[in-house]
């Protein structure tokens, strides 16, 4: 859904063919979210079907130039100004994995956390190394787009690491409480949320 709206938004700036559009998307977002050209063409077809873009007759070298319709322009503006939709949050594999790891004897959840933390920290370091200097990122809109896309990854990965630390300390607290009062050890039912996650992911 977001790729569809992003492509539509770029078309609002100038009519272009699918291959150009893909290049423009990657330039403006720093190739952080790579896109294959087939995906671009099929998205354009759907946008055309929905009356948001038009397709001109192929040029002599076979390119089809797309342009936005008035409805398309309105949809792109609305996409920018409306806050993102949270009714169907993206499925978060890591959150799912940890909820399940906390409730199974198959693995030690703390080991799962430790491995993930090392891997997330490396990812964060590698993204940070790509960050341009302020001077570089202020150079033009494209450089700024790339820099902002990288920073969004930086903040997301940081949040992931903080969350891992939080889960770890919650589990440690739980373990020490259980040691203090073994009576509380009675088996708890699997939380409904966890059951739902399993169901959804079938």
């Amino acid at each position, binding site marked *: 859904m977001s790729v569809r709206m992003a492509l539509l938004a770029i078309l609002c700036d100038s009519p272009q063919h699918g291959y150009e559009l893909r290049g423009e998307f990657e330039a403006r977002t720093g190739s952080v979210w790579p896109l294959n050209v087939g995906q671009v063409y099929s998205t354009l077809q759907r946008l055309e079907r929905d009356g948001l873009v038009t397709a001109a007759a192929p040029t002599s070298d076979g390119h089809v130039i797309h342009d936005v319709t008035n409805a398309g322009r309105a949809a792109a503006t609305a996409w920018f100004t409306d806050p993102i939709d949270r009714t169907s949050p993206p499925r978060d594999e890591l959150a799912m994995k940890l909820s399940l790891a906390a409730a199974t004897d198959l693995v030690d959840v703390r080991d799962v956390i*430790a*491995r*993930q*933390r*090392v*891997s*997330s*920290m*490396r990812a*964060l*370091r*590698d*993204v*940070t*190394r790509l960050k341009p*200097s302020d001077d570089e990122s202020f150079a033009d809109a494209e450089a700024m787009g790339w820099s902002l896309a990288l920073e969004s990854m*930086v*903040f997301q*990965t*940081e949040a992931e*690491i*903080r969350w891992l*630390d939080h889960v770890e*300390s919650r589990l440690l607290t739980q373990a020490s409480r259980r040691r203090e009062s073994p009576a509380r050890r009675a088996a708890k039912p699997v939380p409904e949320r966890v059951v739902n996650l399993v169901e959804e992911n079938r």
Partner: protein
Amino acid sequence: MSTQAITERSPSVIATPPPLELLDVSKVYGEAQLAVQALRGVTLTVHEGEFVAVMGPSGSGKSTLLQLAGGVESPSAGCVSICGRALVGQSSAARAQARLGAVGYVFQALNLVSSLTAKENVALPLELAGEKTKRAYRLATEALIEVGLESSVDKFPEEMSGGQQQRVAIARGLIGDRKLILADEPTGALDSVSGEAVLRLLRAKVDAGAAAILVTHDARHAAWADRTVFLRDGLIIDDTGGPGDPRDLLGPL
């Protein structure tokens, strides 16, 4: 880029002893029932041009590790060497002397001298190491400009905000030709933009050949380091290794 500083180390650099070596270092504070085992056998080498971050919960031994590395405290067991010189057995005065020339320290509790201005605070380690006052002041002023404090050069600590005082402490830790920079949560009082500016500065010092350890709770700041080690209860429990480390190919340990 900075990766090259790590992978393409010249042979002459490999031959010189590393700026910091901790060998099976332990630290116990207090005695008998009151004894606290703050570090339990930590081994860590930091090379020239290497930047290591230390993360861990409160009380896990991060500041202790830094104090041992800087010779501020002496270990209960194990050995600490700065630039190949073992600190064990040296008097605290000798440790201080070894530290003055080679080691820049940014303390968690800033340790600014309240009766000295920002410039005088920053110049202090240079003067103690024998630098002439005039030159020390000039370098101190430059260092303060680097951390964005050009307008506070002649202010006293109590006339500055927490974040400004923190930047004075950073300037003092980075000034001069330090082989080893030890920074204990240097960005705690800074907003995210000034915090990042400080990390870029530290990164630049390392890329110019210094070795550095940064203690931080902030993963975004640790990410400027080449390598992050994780402390728990006085032990290194995990280590990302450096970029291009063979372990990267094998996945996490």
